[in-house]
């Protein structure tokens, strides 16, 4: 008994000591990573797609090691590591990249360094000035009318105004002000007035959609669940989610572009300022601007290449998005993202004032 007591105490002491000492040991064991490309990307689909379509082929071609770190938000990842940059590449929306550049967190991309940019239509370049961009455009998706086919028909959703019709009262879902400020409101403003800067119209429309919603979703995971279960039957939402569902053989959620058109969602790669090994980061961006990786990325997440030289499987695009690539480009609206970014914070506050009153 006594011996047992002793060993038990010794065990407890040992456990406590090792628990206290452990963190220090591993702190010193972890060195700063260098000699590789470390990219911040959204977990799940995007990260996997970048690893397979961009990272690994790049690694094979150049011998530079490539690693994707999955994060909940790439902007948060860059901002919270700004004082000691750990990533040398990161994936963002146009507006997000503009904000990061303004905050002094990312470096300007010199157009002359990337000859392949000549193959991207000029209106898709997020310019700072004639010679610089906030990020390198890689591909785009769109914000379409996503719906559950078991509970709504395509004919009922021919116009974006379906989202505010009494027929779908409390049966649609919408995003919250933080993202509505980026996508819904600029789009509705343009759709209703022909001018994205006439925000009042867009705000009023968004307020009506919210009033018609079963809930305002918080994460893509949540809205996917809502749409799949039919708790919400339609939503202004990322078309790429429909692509990945169809890829998995789930066909009850579909996407269409109403007669007014839809919003284009462009994405870019950025390089954080003072990042480790910037030369390799630029090399990676140069590789990312070529057609080959964008062609490969399409199948995984439905990201459509900007590079006009990229060859894409239009039959697949038609099967998963219901439109061919030229059809899509024709119907998609590309707003002035600099304006969207510059007015975003004020817009969020205005939207909150409109829709946030509890009860």
């Amino acid at each position: 008994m006594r011996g047992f007591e002793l060993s038990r105490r010794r065990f407890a002491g040992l456990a406590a000591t090792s628990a206290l000492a452990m963190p220090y040991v591993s702190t010193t064991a972890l060195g700063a990573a260098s000699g590789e490309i470390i990219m911040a990307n959204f977990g799940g689909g995007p990260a996997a797609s970048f690893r397979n379509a961009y990272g690994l082929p790049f690694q094979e071609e150049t011998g530079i090691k490539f690693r994707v770190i999955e994060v909940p938000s790439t902007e948060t990842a860059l901002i919270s590591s700004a004082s000691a940059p750990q990533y040398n590449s990161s994936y963002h929306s146009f507006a997000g990249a503009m904000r990061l550049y303004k905050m002094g967190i990312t470096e300007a991309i010199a157009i002359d360094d990337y000859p392949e940019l000549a193959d991207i239509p000029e209106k898709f370049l997020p310019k700072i000035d004639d010679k610089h961009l906030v990020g390198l455009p890689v591909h785009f998706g769109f914000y379409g009318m996503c719906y559950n086919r078991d509970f709504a028909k395509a004919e009922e959703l021919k116009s974006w105004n379906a989202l505010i019709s009494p027929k779908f009262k409390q049966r649609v879902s919408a995003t919250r002000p933080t993202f509505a400020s980026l996508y819904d409101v600029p789009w509705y403003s343009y759709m209703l007035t022909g001018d994205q800067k006439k925000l009042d119209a867009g705000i009023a429309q968004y307020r009506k959609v919210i009033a018609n919603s079963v809930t305002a979703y918080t994460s893509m995971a949540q809205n996917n669940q809502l749409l799949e279960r039919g708790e919400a039957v339609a939503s202004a939402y990322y078309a790429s989610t429909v692509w990945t569902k169809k890829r998995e053989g789930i066909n009850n959620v579909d996407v269409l572009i109403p007669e007014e058109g839809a919003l284009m969602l462009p994405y870019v790669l950025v390089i954080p300022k003072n990042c480790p090994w910037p030369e390799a980061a630029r090399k990676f961006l140069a590789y990312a601007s070529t057609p080959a990786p964008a062609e490969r990325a399409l199948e995984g997440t439905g990201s459509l290449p900007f590079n006009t030289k990229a060859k894409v499987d239009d039959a697949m695009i038609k099967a998963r998005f219901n439109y061919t690539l030229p059809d899509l480009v024709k119907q998609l609206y590309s707003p002035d993202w600099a304006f969207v970014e510059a007015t975003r914070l004020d817009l969020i506050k205005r939207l909150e004032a409109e829709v946030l009153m509890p009860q």
Partner: protein
Amino acid sequence: MRTRSLVLSLFGYAALVFILAPIVIVVIASFSPARYMEFPPPSLSLRWYREVLGSSDWLGAFGSSIVLAFCVATATTAACFLAALVTTRRRFVGKSLLEMLVQAPLLLPNAALAMALLALLVQIKGRGTLGGLWIAHCILVMPFVYRPLVNGLRQFDLGLEEAAMTLGSPPLRTFRLITLPAIKPSLITAFAFSFIISFDEVTASVFLVGVNYTTLPVKILSDIQSDATPAIAAVSTLLMLLTMTFVTIVSRMVGIGRVIGSRSGH
């Protein structure tokens, strides 16, 4: 008397059903064969368990979280126990202030606390390391640990200690044989609380992890950005299974079988 017991039991079981209902659904949905959660699942499959257990990413994050939670629980329980020994036995200038400050991490809203901890870790260059997260989590769980320990010690009859010492028992021996067993339930509660809170913490950790070190909840949060696959449900199920096994083994080994109500006289 009997009807009151019956009512109590009914209430107790009803509460348990309320607590477990959504959990049971998650467990069942974790056996979905599809990429999306479905209830009831059309058929049962272990696809997502294979996926989770076969992925070094998941296992790595899982291991990191366990190590972190263990270090945090041990250190905080020890530190708060020592402090509670003093605050429950001595009056001193600044005691109220100290007790208030111990509660401070609970007073600060999650997001503010997250920013404060990030600022701290940036200063001590601990961002993205186990050591940094350890310090941050210790601060985070401190109020949850301190409170049960103080409550446990307050109810402990100091007369017992005095009697033992009067009878010639040396202080450490008294402590080990009288004090420690009496407040064991509080210690175990404190440890369990801090372990689970640290294991589950995500709002602050999101800011604090780095490229070489991440925790399971942050990995889950990253993973659900695009979709919540049944993998998350499988991870949660495994977690519950593991916790139950762990607690059962520990209680058999260290003999904390009857931690609650050990003096309730039933």
